[in-house]
C-alpha cells in the first residue's frame, strides 16, 4: 500500500437476495486522483459507490479510509460526500440553504456559512443565485448547486454517481471539462461512476472497468484503450474487431487465414488467443498488395471518416477510412504489427467483436435502456 492511498477496499462482496452484485472487489484509491468506475448497468459500480458512502453495508470485506476501517460508520460521520444522479436537492430550501445544509450540521457561525456559500457559488459559476428556488433552476444549474453543496463541507473524497446522465449532450461535455477543472483546482479525490466510456476516458486518471460484479481491468485511459485485458474491455471501450487467432510463435499471430507480425510474446506455441484490431488501425491497399482481402458490404459517411462493414472470410469487420470505397468493391488489407493486440482467452471470448448484426439503431436502443435503470 502506497503512502498516498486514501481509500482501500479489501475483498468487498455484496449480494441482493441471491444475486451477487459485488464479488470480492479489492482496490486502492489514491489521494487527489480522478478515478472512474466504468461498466454497463447492473455491473455493481453504483453499489460500490454506495458502500463507500455508507448507504449500504458490504456483506464481506472492509472499507479502509486513511488506515481506519469505516465499515460501521454511518454516512453522516464519513469524510466523503456524494453527488447524486438526480441531484437530490432539498425542494423546500433555496439555493443558499441547500449549500449551507452541511455547514449548519457542523454548527458553523452564520458569517462563515455566508462566506463559504458565496465562495462555492463562484466556484460553480452561479454567483447571485442565493435566494433562488430550486424548482426555478435548469438541469445544469441544479447540477452546479449539487456540486457546490457537496464541496462546501470540504470533503476529502467526492463520490459522483452518474452526475451528468440527466444533462443533454452539449451541457454534458461542458460539465465534463468543468468538473475536471474543479477537481484539479481543489486537489481532492473524485470517485466517478458512469456507463459512458467516452466520459470515463476523457476525465479520469484511472479507469476501473467493471462487469458482473468483478473488476475487469484497472489502468490509465490510454492503457485501457490500447491494451484491453479481455474481449469485454475491448468491446466496451471504443469499437473493436475481436477475432479468433492462434499464436504460432513469439511475434507471430495467425488469424483470418493469414500470418501477421505482431509485438506480443510469451504465449505457448499454438495457443488460442483473442485478437483485437481497432477499426481506425486497418490500412487499405489495392487488392493484389493486401495480406488479406475483403468485400465492402456497407458504407456510412460519419463526417470525419467513412465507417465500413467489410466481410473478410465470413467475419464482419468494422473499418474506418478517409477514402471512399463503394459497397460491393473488393479491398486489400494490411495491418501494422503495433495495431495488433493479442489477449488471452477469457469467459468473454466469442461474445463480442463481430459486426454482422451491427446497426446504429441497436446502439441507440441499448443506450436508452441503460438510462432507464
Amino acid at each position, binding site marked *: 500500500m502506497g503512502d498516498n492511498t486514501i481509500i482501500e477496499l479489501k475483498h468487498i462482496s455484496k449480494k441482493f437476495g441471491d444475486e451477487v452484485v459485488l464479488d470480492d472487489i479489492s482496490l486502492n484509491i489514491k489521494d487527489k486522483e480522478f478515478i472512474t468506475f466504468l461498466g454497463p448497468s447492473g455491473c455493481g459500480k453504483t453499489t460500490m459507490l454506495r458502500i463507500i*458512502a*455508507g*448507504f449500504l453495508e458490504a456483506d464481506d470485506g472492509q472499507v479502509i479510509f486513511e488506515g481506519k476501517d469505516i465499515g460501521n460508520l*454511518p*454516512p*453522516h*460521520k464519513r469524510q466523503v*460526500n*456524494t453527488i*447524486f444522479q*438526480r441531484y*437530490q*436537492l*432539498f*425542494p*423546500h430550501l433555496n439555493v443558499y440553504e441547500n449549500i449551507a*445544509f*452541511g455547514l449548519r*450540521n*457542523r454548527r458553523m457561525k452564520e458569517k462563515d456559512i455566508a462566506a463559504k456559500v458565496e465562495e462555492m457559488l463562484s466556484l460553480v459559476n452561479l454567483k447571485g443565485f442565493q435566494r433562488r428556488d430550486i424548482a426555478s433552476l435548469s438541469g445544469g444549474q441544479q447540477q452546479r448547486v449539487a456540486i457546490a*453543496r*457537496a464541496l462546501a*463541507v470540504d470533503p476529502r473524497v467526492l463520490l459522483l454517481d452518474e452526475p451528468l446522465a440527466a444533462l443533454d449532450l452539449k451541457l454534458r461535455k461542458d460539465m465534463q471539462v468543468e468538473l475536471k477543472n474543479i477537481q484539479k483546482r481543489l486537489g481532492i479525490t473524485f470517485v466517478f461512476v458512469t456507463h459512458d466510456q467516452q466520459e470515463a476516458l476523457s476525465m479520469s486518471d484511472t479507469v476501473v472497468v467493471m462487469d458482473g460484479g468483478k473488476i475487469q481491468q484497472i489502468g490509465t485511459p490510454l492503457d485501457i484503450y490500447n491494451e484491453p485485458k479481455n474481449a469485454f474491455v475491448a468491446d466496451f471501450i471504443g469499437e473493436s474487431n475481436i477475432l479468433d487467432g492462434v499464436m504460432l510463435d513469439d511475434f507471430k499471430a495467425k488469424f483470418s487465414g493469414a500470418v501477421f507480425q505482431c509485438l506480443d510474446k510469451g504465449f505457448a506455441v499454438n495457443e488460442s488467443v483473442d485478437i483485437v484490431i481497432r477499426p481506425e488501425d486497418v490500412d487499405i491497399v489495392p487488392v493484389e498488395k493486401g495480406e488479406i482481402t475483403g468485400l465492402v458490404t456497407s458504407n456510412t459517411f460519419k463526417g470525419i471518416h467513412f465507417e465500413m462493414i467489410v466481410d473478410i472470410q465470413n467475419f464482419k469487420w468494422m473499418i474506418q477510412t478517409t477514402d471512399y470505397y463503394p459497397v460491393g468493391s473488393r479491398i486489400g488489407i494490411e495491418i501494422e504489427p503495433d495495431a495488433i493486440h493479442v489477449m488471452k482467452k477469457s469467459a468473454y471470448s466469442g461474445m463480442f467483436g463481430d459486426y454482422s448484426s451491427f446497426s446504429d439503431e441497436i446502439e441507440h436502443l441499448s443506450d436508452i435502456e441503460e438510462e432507464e435503470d
Partner: protein
Amino acid sequence: MTKNTALKKVISAPYLVWAALFIIVPLIFVVYYSLVDAGGSFSLEYIKSIGRYKDIMLNSIWLGFVATIICLVIAYPLAYIMARSTKNVQRTMMMLVMLPMWMNLLIRTYSLMILLQDTGILNSVFTFLHLPVRHMINTRAAVVLGMVYNYIPYMILPLYSIMVKIDYGLVEAAQDLGASRFSVLRKIILPLTAPGIASGFTMVFVPSVSTFYISKKLGGSTFSLIGDIIEMQFKSANNYNLGAALSLILMVLILLCMAIMNRFTGDDDDGGVLI
C-alpha cells in the same frame, strides 16, 4: 372555439345555482337567525348570551386539540413505517386503516363504549387479572379516546400519502452532508410533510371539536361539548336562534384555528391533500 367555451360555461350553471341556493343561502340563514330574536326583529341578545357557554366552548376546543395532537403523535411514525415498507405491506395496511373508517361512526363509538363500561369487557379483564375495577366511561379521557379512535385514520391517510411521495434519496443526501437521524427528521422529513400534517390536522380537529355523538355516549349526561349544546337547541329546546348563534361562533373559531395552523405549516394552494 368561442362557441365551445361559451358552452362550457353554461354547463356549470346548474351547479352554480345549486351552490348559491344550498351552500351560500343556508349560511346567510345561520347569520340571520343569530341576529334576530324569536319574534324576528334585530337583536344581539343571542350573540351576547354566548358568554355563558364560554367554558364549554373552550373545553371543546381544548379536547379537540388534545385528540388531534395525540392522533398526530401516533399516526406520524406509523405513516412513516408504512411509506418505507414493501408494496404489499403498504396495500394491506391501507386496507386495515380504512376498514374501520368505513364503519359508521355511531357503531364505532358504541363498540368503544361497550369496552369501557363499568361492567364492560376491559373491567372484566381487569377483574380476571385481579386488578382493581376502573371507572373509565363518562370521563374527559374517554371522550378524547373516542375522538382519537374515530378520527385517527383521517390523520394516517394524508400523512402516508405525502410520505410515500418523498424521495428517499433526499434523506440519504442529508445524511451524506452530516445530518444525524434527528436532524434529518427535523430539517427534511418534517418540512416536507408539513402539508400532510396540515390536512390531517384539519380533518381530525374539525369533526372532533364539533362532535356531539361521541361526547354523548362516552362523556355521559353530565358532560357537554359545544356540539351537544347546538344539537339540543335544534332537536329538543327548539331555540333556533341560540343554536344559530352558537354555530356561527363555532365556525368562526374553527376558521381562526385553521388560519393559525396554516401560518405554522405554510400554504398549500390546492386546498390540502385529500386521500
